[in-house]
């Protein structure tokens, strides 16, 4: 995408991306109460899937990579109606925090924060 296209769609990206992060945050709170909450698991899966796609298209590959790892983790959880572990819930909490900061960074400076640490966390789960 050209620079012109990027700036044309950045506001829309941030609006929808922040909504997905908010959706994930709410779903994490639901999982803290019930780690088998199907609706919360599905919400996280679909939100991560969508945020991955649009982030990669906009050139924000680190957020895309984090979301791809979350999506891969939650796909079997959703299909097998499993329980989400405390480690995954903790990683989701951290992800929401860094994603929020990254969205602010994108808005201000047009670039992501360094997400290598959270990427590594998800890679090890």
């Amino acid at each position, binding site marked *: *995408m050209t620079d012109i296209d990027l700036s044309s*769609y950045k506001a*829309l*990206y941030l*609006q*929808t*991306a922040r909504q997905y992060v908010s959706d994930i945050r709410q779903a994490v709170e639901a999982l803290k109460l019930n780690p088998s909450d199907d609706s919360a698991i*599905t919400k996280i*899966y*679909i939100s991560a*899937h*969508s945020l*991955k*796609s*649009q982030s*990669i*298209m906009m050139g924000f590959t680190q957020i*895309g990579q984090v979301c*791809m790892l979350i*999506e*891969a983790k939650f796909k079997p959880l959703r299909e097998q109606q499993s329980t989400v572990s405390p480690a995954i819930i903790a990683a989701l909490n951290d992800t929401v925090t860094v994603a929020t900061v990254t969205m602010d960074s994108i808005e201000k400076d047009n670039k992501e924060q360094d997400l290598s640490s959270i990427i590594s966390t998800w890679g090890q789960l």
Partner: protein
Amino acid sequence: MKVLLIEDDTFFREFYSSKLQQTGMEVEMAADGEEGLAKVAKVKPDVILLDIIMPKKDGFEVLQSLSESPSLKKIPVIVFSTLGQDSDVEKAKKLGAVDYINKSFFDFDKLKSKVVAFGKGK
């Protein structure tokens, strides 16, 4: 050329619809599979662009429903894919999708050529 875009993500719905409309195509939109199926019957598009992962009815369920309708199954369906979805694309093709577009790597010429080719061939 009339295109029905069935896509739950607001960003992609806005982005793809605006790009297609810039070429002169008429674009109808639906935000989930249920709404998409209702609109297919009403709008009778030349081509359907269909997301796979959606709440309510997903893309697979939409494809299954279309295949069961003698009139609607003739409408070509191009599915949206993203990274890590190769198996989903294969499943969609077995359910009747004619092609796919990776929505994370926007290539407007490819999108337009596929929509035109399949839309005219219907």
